[in-house]
């Protein structure tokens, strides 16, 4: 029997909703490059390639316009300064891949810093007891939200919104003012730098937080592509109803992504504590938006089922490099960052839409 594949599904669309070429898939190929050198890119990876290319472009522009930009330490600083965002955004990626959203991440980070600071400074606990405790706390928080969402079919937006209120409120209950952390363990970890690159002029090094972030990233990539849970996340994001009918563990998966996000937020909170050495209710305000922006710029669709964790890394790096460019420039006020990020989001989302429309649904 011959193959019966239709590249373009035409005719009466009396079939399943997405029987046409997928927005990011396709049997046709995209050609990148001019002239003699052309790359054939699998359409699945186009948004990722776009993000990485844009990042490289910005790095190049920065190096051209600002002296001292093209230095390994500048690049590594992106990881050091955004370690907590990388971890948070990785957790957020899973949630968005499964078709949900988590608005509580920033607040959980703040709560983590506050609880850590309070226990260590005011109650004299050892950091080695506190850190596992706050990780457990964040994970349970995420699991609780995931349970509510799944069991009672509540909207993720509203549940995690309430979670955001709750976490930040608890922060303020502990203390309104910030609590500085003077514990030596935290100070040592905060200042530790592991050399990565050594040359005659300089040594580039990386912080503990950044290392944790990279470890989390690698683990996440493994989970997403090599474990049943990760694949179930994609399946549920693609079509929750179909996943259920296929016998996939939808309930476990949905609760799982929020639990994972809670864990990542808590871990990001721990890294944030190393970074800021204080606990404060106003930490990480609006961070959830940065995380969502990073995930979107990284190529993950907000509708779920499509995207790569690796892309999220570049989404974060993109946000970081904009900040770096602006601070290198020195003349632009910091609020320009907001405008540029907004514009970038706009361009990326527009591209995603144009791409989807071009792949198009045949009627």
């Amino acid at each position, binding site marked *: *029997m*011959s*193959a*019966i*594949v*239709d*590249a*373009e*599904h*035409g*005719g*009466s*669309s*009396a*079939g*399943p*909703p*997405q*029987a*046409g*070429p*997928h927005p990011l*898939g*396709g*049997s046709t190929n995209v050609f990148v490059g001019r002239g003699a050198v052309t790359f054939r890119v699998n359409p*699945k990876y186009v948004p990722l390639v776009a993000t990485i290319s844009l990042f490289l472009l910005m790095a190049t522009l920065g190096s051209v316009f600002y002296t001292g930009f093209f230095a390994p330490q500048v690049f590594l600083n992106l990881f050091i300064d955004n370690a907590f965002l990388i971890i948070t955004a990785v957790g957020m990626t899973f949630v968005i891949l499964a078709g949900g959203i988590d608005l509580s991440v920033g607040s959980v980070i703040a709560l983590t810093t506050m609880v850590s600071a309070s226990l260590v400074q005011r109650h004299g606990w050892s950091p080695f007891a506190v850190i596992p405790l706050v990780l457990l706390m964040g994970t349970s928080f995420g699991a609780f939200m995931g349970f509510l969402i799944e069991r009672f079919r509540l909207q993720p937006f509203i549940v995690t919104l309430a979670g955001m209120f709750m976490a930040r409120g608890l922060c303020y209950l502990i203390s309104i003012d910030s609590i500085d952390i003077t514990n030596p363990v935290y100070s040592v970890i905060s200042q530790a730098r592991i050399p990565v690159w050594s040359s005659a002029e300089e040594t580039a090094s990386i912080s503990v937080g950044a290392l944790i972030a990279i470890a989390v990233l690698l683990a996440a990539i*493994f989970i997403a*592509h*090599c*474990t*049943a849970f990760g*694949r*179930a996340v*994609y*399946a549920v*994001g*693609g*079509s929750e*109803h*179909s*996943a*259920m*009918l*296929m*016998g*996939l*563990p939808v309930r476990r998966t949905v609760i799982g992504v929020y639990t994972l996000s809670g864990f990542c937020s808590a871990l990001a909170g721990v890294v944030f504590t190393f970074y800021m050495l204080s606990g404060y209710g106003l930490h990480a305000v609006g961070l959830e938006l940065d995380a969502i922006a990073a995930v979107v710029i990284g190529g993950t669709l907000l509708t779920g*089922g*499509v995207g790569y964790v690796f892309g999220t890394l570049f989404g974060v790096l993109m946000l970081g490099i904009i900040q770096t460019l602006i601070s290198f420039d020195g003349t632009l006020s910091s609020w320009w960052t907001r405008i540029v990020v907004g514009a970038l989001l706009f361009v990326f989302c527009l591209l995603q839409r144009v791409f989807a429309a071009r792949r198009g649904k*045949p*009627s």
Partner: protein
Amino acid sequence: MAPILELTGIDKQFAGVSVLRDVQLRLYPGEIHALMGQNGAGKSTLIKVLTGVLESSGGDMHLAGEPIRPGSPLEAQKLGISTVYQEVNLCPNLSVAENVFAGRYPRCGALQGFRIDWAAVNQRARELLARIGLDIDVAQLLSNCSVAVQQMVAIARALGVESKVLILDEPTSSLDDDEVQKLFTVLRRLRSEGMAILFITHFLNQVYAVSDRITVLRNGQWVGEWPASELGPQALISAMLGREFAATAGAAPSTAADTTAPTLLQAMALGQAGHLQPTDLTVRSGEVLGLAGLLGAGRTELARLLFGLESPDCGTLDIDGKNVRLSNPADAIALGLALCPEERKTDGIVADLSVRENIALALQARQGVRRFMSIAEQTALAEKFVAALGIKCASVEMPMGLLSGGNQQKAMIARWLATDPRLLILDEPTRGIDVAAKQEIMDEILRLAQAGMAVLFISSEMSEVVRVSHRIAVLRDRRKVGELPGGSSEAAVYELIAAEHEHA
């Protein structure tokens, strides 16, 4: 030989309303068994009970002699009962191979962290698909594949879990004749391997082409079980309807179309890249123009172009002799056109609004925002059509989503009739409707034409098209291949399609 699957005394109630009452079913290994009944007979509910989506309120189920009670689709799958749904219900964003193995991935050893062995996934998927005669790139996204292929993938998944029972729920609604034949070949092959296959369909000729035995349900109750050879079409329809039903009633149009009637609509070289090649079409007032063709011929595409849902890339459209450019349906409606779309769930009904609001919607849209029809006016309008078309609903305030498929379809037609159109385009108006309702709609179409309305009638049931049209335009592979006068035989239409195929 003992049945592999036996259901007895199955009851199911929804909030006190009985949907299934004392239903029985026997499925033997190595047979294709058709489950038939009108809309609302309980077929879908029975399937949901079988596959664990719903829990029965009473009755027994036995699989290979053991009592079973599947509480979820996963349990049913593990027991060996797999289903291929009408909407396929796989994940379009995953690859073909992954869809086959989702949830049951082969793993690498401990050294590799028990990660998924993708090479094995792809290889085994290829093997499973080869078993049913399919040879495609298993790494591509499922959404790239046609519906027919997606169904094969679903069947391959069922094979992968070593099912004993395979249920196919309306598998042929979205397939063209070629693909239907290929599906039947696969089913026959599986049957010879000992699989028990339960097959739900509306198409009578398909039932006789491939099934061994037939079970009929009516109003939630079991009517009977017969070998296909012993139950003729007349008897089958009687069993489904519960009364003697004269097949193919309704006269052909008594007169040919009045060729002196003014031309209402003229499309010249109208086309859309990738969807429809440049096509000419003329419609006169008071005539029923049938649009015949196989699935994928481009009939819906043409309808959408005529109605302004899509923009043409080439060609012109004249209405009443004047050139028009339709940028959205509102433009078309203002000119007196109406389109009852094929996909009523996605393009037609607004499920949470009441029947009244749904029926009044298009008329209100044409009148604009400010000229609001009062509730009383809307109710009067809705009730008029409920009576005229025989729509069964408790009241016009009922949410539309609660009506049965057939009644929803009638309400859709009512919505468009309410706008008093000059040209009514009906795209598969009789799909998913029981036999009696189909007849009512066909008669209504003829009545409307006699009253001066032009009708563009699209249907996959060729018998309907030839019976009711004054003229038949024939499409194949997204272009028009010819026209035939009303009263032509089905064979003539198929001949025209086939002739083009040979030339191509």
